[in-house]
């Protein structure tokens, strides 16, 4: 009798999972994987959201034999752009025109249009940090011009522009800017976010073939909290990256001291240390020290750097070049009243009492006036496999 009751109970228990009805079940082929999204702002303050959905049947060689998906056309992805009051409202509209469920877990890149970035980046980031389907590891980029265009570049090196953008973002800094990092910077006291800028470009194959549209990293977007204030490029952008210690695979190219050519130093490792210190007269001084180790990677001059004074002077020159870049970058940042390096954040952390006095107007008064001492030391460990420049007669060499 007891066993019978127990069996009935067990049978009833076995039925429980069936009653749940698998509501959350969604087969992998009923999902539209959004791999990249772009947000722009329209003149009437609406969001224009563009999403890129790769077509599995096109993008992967797998399953072609089995008949493939219903993908048609020659692109491996589907692009849709919709206007809505909010980011999610636009998504909802897009969903209405889609046979598959939008799925954001695999969104690897998010691009802000230039206009939107100048307006406000905080609200799209709110969506991304609020919904668990979105990942804190999504890379953030700013486009120069409308962001929607970037997602339509040919970018033939990868299967989709999304993948191309992701790799670009990954290469942009040592610690690429993700939702997590940008959110942290937005929330931190005395710190501003920064993002790489990507722009549309065309390849120049010469007369050989048709030009193709491509994407390239093009400097840095400098923010004051949620508003972009400027885009830096060239040496100033390099200088900011140096000062942040985020420069990925830097190359220092400097003219040889006798003007006979150029010398490139490939940086193998470096370390940047930023400190703030109070001076005896009650002000704050910032010190940025860079210790750079590199190797000679190219020499088009007639100088040899083997066992000679030339190496020491090259090191001095290189150190000066790095210092100059950093100086340029930091000056720009101070002029823009933006602090992505986090100098003020260091004051806040190390001298909270002091920060309390200056924080009411730190951006416009305190930060631009901090003296920043920059000190870069480049050490060249070796001169590569060749000892003297190739093709220069021995009598012309200067050691």
């Amino acid at each position: 009798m007891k066993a019978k009751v127990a069996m009935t109970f067990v049978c009833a228990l076995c039925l429980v999972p069936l009653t749940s009805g698998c509501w959350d079940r969604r087969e992998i082929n009923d999902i539209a994987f959004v791999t990249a999204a772009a947000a722009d702002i329209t003149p009437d303050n609406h969001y224009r959201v563009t999403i890129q959905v790769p077509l599995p049947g096109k993008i992967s060689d797998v399953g072609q034999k089995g008949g493939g998906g219903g993908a048609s056309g020659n692109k491996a992805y589907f692009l849709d752009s919709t206007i809505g009051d909010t980011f999610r409202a636009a998504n909802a509209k897009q969903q209405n025109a889609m046979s598959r469920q939008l799925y954001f877990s695999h969104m690897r890149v998010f691009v802000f249009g230039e206009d939107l970035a100048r307006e406000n980046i905080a609200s799209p980031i709110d969506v991304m940090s609020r919904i668990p389907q979105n990942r804190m590891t999504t890379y953030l980029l700013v486009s120069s011009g409308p962001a929607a265009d970037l997602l339509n570049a040919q970018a033939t090196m990868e299967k989709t522009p999304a993948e191309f953008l992701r790799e670009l973002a990954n290469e942009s800094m040592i610690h690429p800017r993700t939702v997590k990092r940008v959110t942290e910077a937005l929330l931190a006291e005395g710190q501003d976010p920064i993002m790489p800028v990507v722009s549309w470009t065309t390849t120049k194959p010469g007369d050989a073939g048709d030009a193709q549209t491509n994407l390239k990293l093009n400097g840095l977007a400098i923010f004051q909290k949620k508003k972009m204030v400027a885009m830096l490029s060239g040496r100033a952008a390099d200088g900011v990256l140096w000062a942040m210690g985020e420069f990925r695979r830097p190359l220092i190219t400097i003219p040889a001291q006798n003007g006979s050519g150029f010398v490139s130093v490939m940086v193998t490792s470096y370390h940047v240390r930023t400190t703030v210190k109070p001076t005896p007269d009650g002000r704050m001084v910032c010190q940025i020290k860079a210790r750079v180790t590199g190797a000679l990677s190219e020499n088009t001059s007639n100088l040899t750097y083997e066992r000679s004074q030339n190496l020491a002077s090259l090191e001095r020159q290189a150190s000066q070049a790095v210092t100059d870049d950093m100086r340029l970058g930091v000056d720009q940042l101070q002029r823009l009243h933006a602090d992505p390096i986090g100098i003020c954040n260091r004051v806040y952390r190390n001298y909270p009492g002091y920060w309390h006095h200056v924080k009411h107007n730190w951006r416009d008064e305190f930060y631009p006036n901090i003296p920043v001492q920059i000190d870069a030391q480049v050490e060249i460990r070796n001169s590569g496999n060749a000892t003297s420049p190739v093709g220069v007669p021995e009598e012309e060499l200067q050691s």
Partner: protein
Amino acid sequence: MSGRVLIRRRRRRPTESVRGPEQQGTELDASTPLEIEGGSSYAASCEVPISDHLHDNLTMMLKVFSDCSDLQVRHLCVGHARDACMLYLSGLVNATDLSEEALRPLIYDFQANDEHVMDRLSPDKIRDEGVLLARVGRADTFRKAIDGIVGGQAALFVDGVSQAFLLSTSGPERRSISEPETESVVRGPREGFTEDLSVNIALLRHKIRTPQLKAHSFTLGTYTKTAVLLVYIEDLADPKVIAEAKRRISSIEIDGVLESGYIEELIEDQPMSPFPQFQYSERPDTIAAQLLEGRFAIFTEGTPFVLIAPVTWWQFVQASEDYYERFFLVYLVRVLRYISLFLALFLPAMYIAVTTYHQDMLPTSLVMSVAAARESIPFPAIIEALIMELTFEALREAGIRLPKAVGQAVSILGALVIGQAAVEAGIVSAPMVIIVAITGIASFTLPRYNAAIAIRLLRFPMMLLAAVLGMFGIVIGVMWISIHLCKLRSFGVPYLSGLAPYKRKEIKDLFFRPPWWKMVFRPSSFAHHNRKRMAERQMPGPDKRSGSRGGAR
């Protein structure tokens, strides 16, 4: 003695325990179909003493063995003076032995002092002088004589002697000792048990040469009268466990025992568990190793498979070769087995959960490949998985039983139909085929077949749970299995002994195999009163005190 009375008595007291095997036999006999057929001579003969009239005895025996055409009756005259008769079943005895060692001395050698034959013919004399065989037993009831005959002995009835002599000969030819097919090794002994119990126990005696190796005998099965031995080493096995094992074995009442599996299912602790609570092996070295750790073994006549208990789960992940090969290799192999175990149990479930609920858990490029492969598949992942897994199980089952030549055809069919055609026809996706293949291979790496079956079985509920509840379902399944395993006992020994309850010093032999010089103690779960197996500090190396670096200069 009426059978009906006995039946009623048994019903009234169904759980009547510890009884001698013979007594049980008697009771069961009375209630078995023999009674219904009316040919009750066997049952009736049971406790009837053998009389000293040869004629009466023969009549009785022939009645019992009526219609047994293989019964041989050999009349003879002991010392040309006294009538005697030898009965045996042809085929069960060695006729040459019988004639050389028993008939010849009985007929001819007794002639020498025939004047005394009549007066001094005592049972002892016949046994001592008349028969040259090593094993001669005596029966004073028909019951014993009959059991002797069906057990392969020859019964000798002599006129004027109220006893029967049971003569044992070498018996018929059985399968010779060969390499065990289910547990082959690269390194290790190649002999395996056979169907002959005496050979089997001898094989074990060759390994463990001590009188402390005990073999307690039982006879199970009313009709089969299968000899069963409970084997253990006296100082090592826990006496309480042995007592419990004896109690459980002797309480078995069954008409026949044809394989050790009968015993296993009748005495295990938790019959409703999918996990095996006995290990079986046909390797004498495996059995010897287990006995040396304080376990006991159950040998069954007629099968090469010997049961071992108490067991822990870890034994099923260990092969005998683990202890013969150097330990570095075994480290790797054990880790591999645990990974395989995990894969065999969870991989299809994980695949289902990930592709139907947690697409975010896969890397983007992988999710694209899987999505592309599934693009044209008409079934949900669970149906796809069930189709593939069931086909695979069917193929495996077919492959086991078929003759080798046909087996090849099955594997070709399987490889072609499942591996290729199903994918090309768009019925199942290629990733699913890979998952099933990995699962199959992983389940083959488990060295014990009965443990592999448990894993094979549990894979299906895991798949269903994953299909219904996703990762949560898998977690529920894992919890259920873990709780069950923690609760499971084999003869009082926790199934996960070492891990739960945790024993710091023993955990090393669960996941890895320590070098022999580190395994000083036996596992505490079995031989708890006598744990030291070897001297400590035996890590070898050249003698550092002497000047030379060991051996040659």
